[in-house]
């Protein structure tokens, strides 16, 4: 929750900062553009009046008096028509003034509202100029003369100040709205995270069927939700499998315990003949043996699951090992009236001979036990592209295609309790698969009803190490 909140706050902080920067940039630019515009307008006004004033300065000769013409220069005078004079003085909220100096002398004329401390500008000074709260333009019709028109910019400054405050107010409003929107957006964008978190919490509390609602998110989050949901589904499946396995194991143990209890209680009910006691003890022994085999199988699977089993990496003759197993199972085959044939060339393989021989025994036993009298089981070993392939094929009843994918599952029974009396109580094929997988091999089965079943084991001929090397090369 803390992380979630902090993400939201951080998002809000950065968003706010960015917004302030943008608004400031925008406000400052707008203010400057506005003020420059006003100055340009003012300058144009002043320029217009300057032309009027320069036109009002009349008389005098050419600009440069010819030296051959003696005498004082012609007198110059200044006259503004009433219309022209109306351009000066108070104009709306502005007050325009002018001043004219001749020959660096005292002012020839001035408007009444011209500031008293006004001096002719320095010849180098650029026009227009800002002098305190005044904006002024000037020109020199003759080098020594100067005409100046100016006006106070207090009104402009007041207006710009109003503009400034308006901009600040507008900026603040936009910032506030933006922050609110950002807060809402943040909440909206982070809501799926909240939902994901809530779902994950429920799963952590043990409700494995919980999923993140699909409509929680779009875009990138949708992908994440999909990945999480499929992870949760796999987790649930694994958990369910584990629960099923435990319950199956308990179930498998119940039958021999029932036999033990029934037999003991029944026999203790009354006096029995020694022969009856003997039979009872034999029955109890069979039940106990069955429990022992089941417990051993369960332990073996648990070790293989936990990768605790040490899988030896020995180079050995797999063909010879298979032949030994087949020899061992001949009596069982004869008992079931099943022909057991083998084609086992001497093929070398790296792995754990003891465990691989168990794979052979489990597969062949399974084939013998699930067949009818008179059927045949073929055990074949061959080499194929760097792999060793073991085939156990029969021409028996076959396995229905809907059951075929499950036969390597623990305690899976193709038909009710047919395999109840097998050695490992429904775990033989599961153990075979676990061992083959510990060798980085593959196990599979194909079957056709009334045609037979073929189980294939494919092992890397050079053992686990070669697989690792291959993996690292890739």
């Amino acid at each position, binding site marked *: 929750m803390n992380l979630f909140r902090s993400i939201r706050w951080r998002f809000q902080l950065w968003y706010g900062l960015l917004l302030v920067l943008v608004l400031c940039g925008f406000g400052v630019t707008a203010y400057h553009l506005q003020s420059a515009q006003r100055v340009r307008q003012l300058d144009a006004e002043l320029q217009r009046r300057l032309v009027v004033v320069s036109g009002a300065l009349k008389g005098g000769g050419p600009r440069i008096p010819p030296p051959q013409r003696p005498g004082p220069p012609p007198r110059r005078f200044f006259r503004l028509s009433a219309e022209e004079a109306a351009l000066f003085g108070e104009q709306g909220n502005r007050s325009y003034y002018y001043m004219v100096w001749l020959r660096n002398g005292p002012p020839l004329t001035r408007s009444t509202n011209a500031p008293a401390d006004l001096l002719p500008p320095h010849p180098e000074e650029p026009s227009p100029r800002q002098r305190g709260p005044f904006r002024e333009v000037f020109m020199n019709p003759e080098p020594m003369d100067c005409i100046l028109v100016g006006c106070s910019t207090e009104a402009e400054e007041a207006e710009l100040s109003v503009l400034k405050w308006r901009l600040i107010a507008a900026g603040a409003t936009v910032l506030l709205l933006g922050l609110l929107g950002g807060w809402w957006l943040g909440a909206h964008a982070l809501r799926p995270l909240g939902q994901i978190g809530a779902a994950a919490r429920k799963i952590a509390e043990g409700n494995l069927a919980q999923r993140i609602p699909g409509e929680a998110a779009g875009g990138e989050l949708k992908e994440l939700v999909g990945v999480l949901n499929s992870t949760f589904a796999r987790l649930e499946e694994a958990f369910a499998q584990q629960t099923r396995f435990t319950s199956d194991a308990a179930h498998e143990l*119940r039958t021999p315990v029932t*036999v033990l*209890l029934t037999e003991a209680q*029944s026999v203790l009910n009354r006096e029995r003949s020694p022969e009856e006691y003997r039979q009872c003890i034999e029955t109890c022994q069979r039940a106990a043996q069955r429990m022992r085999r089941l417990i051993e199988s369960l332990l073996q699977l648990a070790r293989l699951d936990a990768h605790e089993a040490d899988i030896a990496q020995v180079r050995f003759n797999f063909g010879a090992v298979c032949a030994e197993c087949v020899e061992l199972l001949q009596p069982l085959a004869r008992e079931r009236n099943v022909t057991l044939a083998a084609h086992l060339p001497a093929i070398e393989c790296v792995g754990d001979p003891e465990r691989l021989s168990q794979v052979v025994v489990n597969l062949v036993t399974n084939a013998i036990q699930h067949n009818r009298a008179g059927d045949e089981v073929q055990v074949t070993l061959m080499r194929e592209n760097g792999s060793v392939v073991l085939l156990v094929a029969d021409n028996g009843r076959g396995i229905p295609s809907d059951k075929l994918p499950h036969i390597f599952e623990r305690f899976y029974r193709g038909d*009710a*309790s047919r395999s*109840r009396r097998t050695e490992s109580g429904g775990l033989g094929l599961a153990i075979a698969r676990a061992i083959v997988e510990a060798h980085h091999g593959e196990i599979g089965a194909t079957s056709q009803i009334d045609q037979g079943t073929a189980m294939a084991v494919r092992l890397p001929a050079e053992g686990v190490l070669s697989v690792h090397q291959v993996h690292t090369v890739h």
Partner: protein
Amino acid sequence: MRLLLVEDEPDLLRGLARTLREEGYAVDTAEDGETGFYKATNAEYDGIVLDAMLPEMDGWELLRRLRVTHRTPVLMLTARDSTNDRVRGLDLGADDYLVKPFDLPELLARVRALIRRGHQQPRPTLQIGEVEIDSKARIIRRAGTAVALTAREYALVEFLAMHRGEIITRTALYEHLLDENDDSLSNLLDVHVSNIRKKLGHDFIVTRRGHGYCIE
């Protein structure tokens, strides 16, 4: 009382059948669902003890098919004890449900109750005149004193008492008191009846010539 026991684990089947026989029941056995179904539909049983996991046809399927035509009381035995499994069994028409592993005395008590219910006889003891039949202890008292009866004699009295007032044919008695491998009763039925009359009074069992026997 004749029971059918369907169980695929041979050791358990043998032990249970022995115990039930020692309790005076005539017991038929079946090791797979199909045989069980065949027997259940082709003979008159007072109760069926049925394992849920069976080869060929499982116990659930057997029960479902049996219920189409038969009302024989069924006690299901199963190694699954989830509520789902129990509900499923009872919904399919099982009369009782017992989870493995169980204690023999409990199984026997449930079988007794099953049979009583099947004969609409909820009380474990029956009083007929001065004769009292205690089906739990399998003892018959006459005027408060226990009477020594053979197992077969007791079974005969118990069956007739459960159907008090009904005329039970000789065939029905063979059906319910003999298991499939036994035909010893046929010529001995009259001998048993006569022995019972000596012990419990001449009028205790009435013979209806040409029809059968009756306890009134």
